């Protein structure tokens, strides 16, 4: 019975309900962060169990400690205490899906070899019962030699029972290698441990045998994470160990796995029984439709279409509310604070800039809500299954679907998520085309342009032209990504297919607390990460647009022919100030370059500032137009854009051609410094981010040029 505070690690296969147990144990006492220097999410929390405050770590899901992915490596490293940011756990809770006992116990037998106390949690016992599987936890406990508790994580009393069991645990270390390696494998392990692992590596003692097994199976150690010496000696010893296994009639890649499964088979054959079921399960029936050759891709497209239509229309009332709030807030500050420079800065710089960003929070929350729901139900894996054939044809990967879909929210998490793609070439192609996916930072620009310039005509009863344009922009991004990947596949050819072993988890209702928590987390990140930069940039911009201070000369139609050609007599002083400010001058400098795309100097300023983050474009326009407007009242940016008139020609600045050209430019151009930074970090060289910037921006310029020239000559 333990009264000491413990570090408890939750470990298990993906889709075992590990997160649900973690949430149930920790409640709100948890924090989610990335592991330092890498992109695997780390969840740490605390839980009071039996009156003691314990630390709970939720390890990334893993199928095996013989890692094939970074997630699995982190789980392994943490468990053996080799991961420097986390101490070795005092207790490992292995979460097992009761309806899929054998494969889940494989990982459990590995964890039992690590010399730390283990407790087995048979989760989803209700699902197993529904599938006609009955398990006797006591028999499992006896044959494995570890305490076992059967629960359903949804059930609160079951969680109490789990807590009870943890507080009663005597923290006994299970007998290592209980699965019984055969003599030749044992001999090979001892050879490797004594001749190389023990003298020449810093692998902790308790992890030596599991590492020996890993090396015998892998035959190499070029992805080892620990320090070692005498590499040649290591290689030759591994070779010798493998030869020993072969001499004993085994296959070094298979012997360990088969022995473990034999042991598991013995444990489960008398402890669990399956009453045969004749009718197809719900999952089978759904899959028959959802993964159907024809219906599958159609359903996937419809799901995406529905998602984006919903994001666009359902978020509108919330966005209007936020818009109103910031307009009113700005007016209030303007009228409350004494007049002066700070007043102007707060209203036109800070509040206008921030308001232009917060307004898109509803859409981001809706998008992530849908992504997490699709993930939670198990549909995401089906989407990867259905799309993999198409994806491999164009040089991508079924696993690319999820990073690419994450790219709809933001390229940065998407690029990080490509780490699930084990093959380097597949991964680099996915990274290179991922920024074409319409990220949420483009949403503000798209939404603004569509709301202002695309009529809201209803089509087919439920869809509007605005919704369809919006959908079209997403499709455009996808098509460009596919084309680019297709070209890149030709540039970096490869002979063979890469492995792709993916579980299709049983359908279930998404765990709402997990969905809402993750969605809120994304929204928070967007506001705090993007928000800070945007407020900062808005302030700088306000200064750039307000200085140097110039007074509009008093002119008449007759006395100054030079000025007459450059501005209209109806121009107001604010507009004049902006045109002659630093920002205006800079916009003017780049105007000749962007003029063929239909952009004026105001958009030019926006293009420059949007390199900080695409949505800054809207903040910039907001600032520019708030400054330009006559004092007294605020109107929304949308109205200002529609009403903006070119002082030289008297024509509206924004035609439909300009709006489309701008949307295309935003769809294709690489104008996000955070993305460039993350690509540099993920690929470890400047080569890829540079190539990405050049090819994407060139493509954007060319496409916008064509679009505008065609559009304006129609």
């Amino acid at each position, binding site marked *: 019975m333990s009264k000491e505070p413990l570090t408890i690690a939750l470990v298990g296969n993906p889709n075992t309900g590990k997160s649900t147990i973690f949430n149930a144990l920790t409640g709100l006492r948890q924090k989610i962060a990335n*592991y*330092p*220097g*890498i992109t695997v999410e780390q969840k740490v929390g605390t839980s009071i169990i039996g009156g003691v405050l314990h630390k709970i770590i939720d390890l990334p899901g893993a199928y095996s400690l013989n890692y094939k*992915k*970074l997630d699995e*490596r982190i789980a392994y490293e943490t468990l053996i205490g080799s991961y*420097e*940011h986390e101490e070795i756990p005092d207790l490992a809770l292995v979460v097992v899906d009761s309806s899929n006992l054998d494969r889940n116990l494989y990982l459990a037998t590995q964890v039992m070899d690590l010399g730390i106390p283990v407790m087995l949690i048979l989760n989803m016992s209700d699902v197993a019962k529904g599938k006609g599987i009955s398990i006797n936890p006591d028999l499992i406990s006896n044959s494995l030699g570890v305490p076992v508790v059967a629960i359903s994580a949804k059930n609160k009393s079951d969680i109490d029972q789990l807590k009870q069991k943890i507080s009663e645990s005597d923290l006994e270390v299970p007998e290592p290698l209980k699965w019984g390696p055969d003599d030749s494998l044992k001999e090979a392990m001892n050879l490797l441990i004594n001749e190389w692992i023990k003298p020449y590596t810093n692998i902790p003692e308790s992890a030596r045998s599991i590492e020996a097994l890993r090396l015998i199976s892998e035959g190499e150690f*070029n*992805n*080892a*994470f620990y320090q070692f010496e005498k590499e040649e000696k290591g290689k030759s010893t591994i070779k010798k160990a493998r030869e020993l296994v072969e001499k004993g009639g085994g296959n070094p890649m298979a012997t360990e796995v088969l022995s473990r499964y034999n042991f598991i088979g013995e444990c489960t054959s008398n402890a669990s029984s399956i009453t045969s079921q004749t009718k197809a399960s719900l999952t089978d029936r759904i899959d028959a439709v959802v993964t159907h050759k024809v219906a599958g891709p159609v359903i996937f497209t419809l799901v995406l279409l529905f998602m984006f239509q919903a994001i666009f229309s359902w978020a509108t009332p919330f966005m209007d509310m936020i818009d109103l709030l910031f307009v009113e807030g700005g007016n209030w500050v303007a009228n409350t604070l*004494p007049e*002066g*420079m*700070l*007043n102007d*800065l707060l209203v036109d710089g800070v509040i206008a800039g921030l308001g232009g960003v917060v307004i898109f929070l509803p859409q981001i929350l809706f998008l992530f809500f849908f992504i997490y729901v699709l993930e939670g139900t198990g549909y995401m894996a089906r989407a990867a299954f259905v799309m993999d054939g198409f994806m491999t044809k164009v040089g991508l990967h079924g696993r690319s679907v999820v990073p690419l879909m994450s790219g709809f929210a933001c390229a940065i998490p998407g690029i990080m998520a490509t*780490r699930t793609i*084990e*093959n*380097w070439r597949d991964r680099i192609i996915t990274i290179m085309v991922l920024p074409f996916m319409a990220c949420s930072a483009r949403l503000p620009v798209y939404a603004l342009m569509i709301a202002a310039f695309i009529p809201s005509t209803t089509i087919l009863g439920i869809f509007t032209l605005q919704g369809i344009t919006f959908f079209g922009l997403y499709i455009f991004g996808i098509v460009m990504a596919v084309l680019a990947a297709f070209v890149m596949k030709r540039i970096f050819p490869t002979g063979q297919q890469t492995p792709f072993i993916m579980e299709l988890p049983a359908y279930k209702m998404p765990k709402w607390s997990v969905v809402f928590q993750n969605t809120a987390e994304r929204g928070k990140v967007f506001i705090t990460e993007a928000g*800070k*930069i945007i*407020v*900062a*940039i808005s*302030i*700088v911009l306000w*200064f750039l647009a307000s200085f140097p*201070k110039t007074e509009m000369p008093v002119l008449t139609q007759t006395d100054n022919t030079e000025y007459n050609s450059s501005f209209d007599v109806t121009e107001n002083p604010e507009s004049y100030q902006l045109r002659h400010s630093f920002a205006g001058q800079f916009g003017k400098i780049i105007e000749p370059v962007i003029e063929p795309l239909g952009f004026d100097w105001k958009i030019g300023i926006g293009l420059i500032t949007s390199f*900080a983050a695409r949505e800054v474009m809207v903040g910039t326009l907001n600032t520019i137009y708030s400054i330009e407007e006559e004092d007294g009242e605020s109107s929304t940016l949308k109205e200002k854009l529609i009403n903006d008139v070119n002082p030289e020609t008297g024509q509206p600045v924004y035609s439909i051609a300009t709006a489309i050209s701008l949307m295309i430019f935003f769809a294709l151009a690489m104008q996000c*410094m955070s993305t460039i*930074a993350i690509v540099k*970090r993920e690929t*470890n060289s400047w080569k890829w981010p540079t190539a990405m910037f050049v090819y994407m921006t060139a493509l954007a310029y060319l496409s916008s040029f064509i679009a505008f020239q065609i559009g304006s000559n129609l």
Partner: protein
Amino acid sequence: MEFDFQTGVAFGMLAIVLVYLTNRFVLTPIRRSKTSPDHNCGPDCKCEH
């Protein structure tokens, strides 16, 4: 241009913002590129030593 209290605060904010932006986009990337991350994962998650 008159220099009053509000102008002072406004320029103070500008100074803070400029320091923040420099730190975020110039200094931090330089620092980060000098100290390699703990787990420097290259192609196929093979760690480079």
